[in-house]
């Protein structure tokens, strides 16, 4: 898959302080999570990619365009949902989204049509003629999403889209983001300090720490790998069961009390485990996949050297 962002020694200094340092690597994937603790440089990286801040060293390419020379063209291909509360007061949601579409180059009639569609799509169809200052935080977040996708960009950049949302509103937002990513018509960068958001929506992740890349991983691959790691709780004589597992070629480790951790080898399926257990008169009472891959990656990245270098 073509890289969404290529970082080529990118460094950014703001007010004389280095914020991003020598970022190198390529971000590919349909939806990419940008993770890091507060102050890691996530928002600065997004702003630099959009041309809000100038690169002090190196460069980056977004969808093949250089941020130093093609900033305007990049912004034409990108839809951006900012982190902070941002809106134009005194106009209705539909007029606001329509204006944003027109500024992106859509003709007036197309902009109007897509503004209505975008607002229906994010679930604000009934509220589209209301002035935005009357909206709740969750509604304002959804309007920001609508303006980010109204001009059908190739890449949508979402900066902390679930900030300040209550659980139902967060669920709605995550569902929308997953739907957009699944549509296949657009690539997505999601910046968040919430691992769960990235875990649910993204298939790749870039972890930043103190302005440097601490990890750049393919979550889809990790998930596929994790499907091989199992945790089991058995009842009965587990000794003969684990011996049988060994004969199948699976690695295992006992945690006592019938609890096992194991790795499935190629060609061995879950149903083989149940068959084996039945043959050995052992009950499998619980079977879980390893689920905390992103957390492991994140914690490992944070624990690695203090300056964030890999």
């Amino acid at each position, binding site marked *: 898959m073509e890289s969404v962002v290529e970082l080529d020694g990118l460094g950014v200094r*703001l*007010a*004389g302080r280095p914020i991003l340092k020598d970022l190198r690597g390529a971000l590919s994937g349909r939806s990419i999570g940008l993770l890091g603790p507060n102050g890691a440089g996530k928002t600065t990286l997004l*702003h630099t990619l*959009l041309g*809000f*801040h100038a690169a002090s060293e190196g460069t980056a390419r977004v969808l093949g365009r250089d941020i130093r020379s093609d900033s*305007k*063209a990049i*912004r*034409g291909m*990108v*839809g*951006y949902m*900012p982190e*902070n*509360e*941002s*809106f*134009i*007061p*005194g*106009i209705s949601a539909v*007029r606001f989204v329509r*204006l*944003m579409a*027109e*500024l*992106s*180059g*859509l*003709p*007036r009639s*197309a902009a109007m049509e*897509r503004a*209505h*569609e975008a607002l*229906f*799509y994010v679930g604000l*169809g009934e509220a589209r003629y209301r002035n935005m200052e009357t909206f709740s935080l969750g509604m304002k977040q959804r309007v*920001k999403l609508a*303006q980010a*996708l109204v*001009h*059908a960009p190739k890449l949508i950049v979402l900066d902390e889209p679930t900030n300040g949302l209550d659980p139902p509103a967060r669920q709605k937002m995550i569902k929308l983001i997953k*739907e*957009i990513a699944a*549509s296949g*018509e*657009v690539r997505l960068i999601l910046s968040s300090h919430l691992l769960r958001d990235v875990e649910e929506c993204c298939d790749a992740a870039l972890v930043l720490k103190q302005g440097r890349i601490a990890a750049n991983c393919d979550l889809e691959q990790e998930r596929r790998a994790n499907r091989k790691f199992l945790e089991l709780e058995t009842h009965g004589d587990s000794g003969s069961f684990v011996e049988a597992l060994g004969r199948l070629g699976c690695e295992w480790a006992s945690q006592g009390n019938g609890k096992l951790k194991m790795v499935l080898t190629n060609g061995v399926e879950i149903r083989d485990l149940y068959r084996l257990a039945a043959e050995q008169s052992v009950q499998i009472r619980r079977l879980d996949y390893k689920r905390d891959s992103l957390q492991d990656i994140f914690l490992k990245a944070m624990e690695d050297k203090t300056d964030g270098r890999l």
Partner: protein
Amino acid sequence: MAVYERAYRGYAGGYTREATRFFALARYGVQRVFAARLFVAFYAACFLPAVVLGTLIYGSHNAKVLAFLRVDPGDVVLINSPMFMGFLAFEGKFLGFLLALIVGPALIAPDLANNALPLYLSRPFNRTEYIAGKLAVLIGLLSTITWVPYLLLYALQAYFAGWEWTKDNLNIPGAIFVGSWIWILCISTIALAAPALLKSKLWSRVFMFVVLFALAAFGAVLAEGLGLGLGHNLNVFQMNLVVWSEMFDVPIGEGSRPLWSAWATLIGACAISLGILYRKVRAYEVVR
């Protein structure tokens, strides 16, 4: 398919020209300004001086009207350069200034106060286009009350008065057009710079009013009290009058300064205002 049943879909239609996109911003600005009824009433009142001058022009060339009003044709007010300059000065420097004071801050302050700039500037739309879009609203509105009606009035007078008058007053249309544009640009950039600095409609109006008039008063004290003629240069209204007097060929007495220094003041005011605008109109401000 009903609109609410649509899933996310791409766009395959055409795009507008980049150079014309700032007009969308200007169009929205004008619509918002005219949404206030009080402003519509004020805007209509701004045409009164032009209507009065039009009536004077018509009346002074109409024997029936003069007879009806029992005015001797010899006593008819002269329609000439000072007349046009006087009306235009009232229109631009009083009503135009008030219009800029009302509209300018309302165009920029809400965007800055509500963090709307990242939304504008994350599109293929830069700061220059944003400022151009906002300036276009003020320039458009101020043009409709200054050089547009006064050029029409000049044409009306030329039509009634004939070739001799037109030949003797050929400087007037140029003075109306160029003079109006100088003042419009000056007052518009100031009216946008103040809210860019203060992010509040009310305070930027107060700031504009106080700064312009306080500077003028301070300049007058310097000029009259201490004999420093340079003090007059702090008064943009006065310096605009100096430039206009040269263009309309109408001498002004008090407060006259060399033409170059008047131009320097007006250009300086525009440059400072544009500098403030470019410094403050950013997607995000870097806190030092």
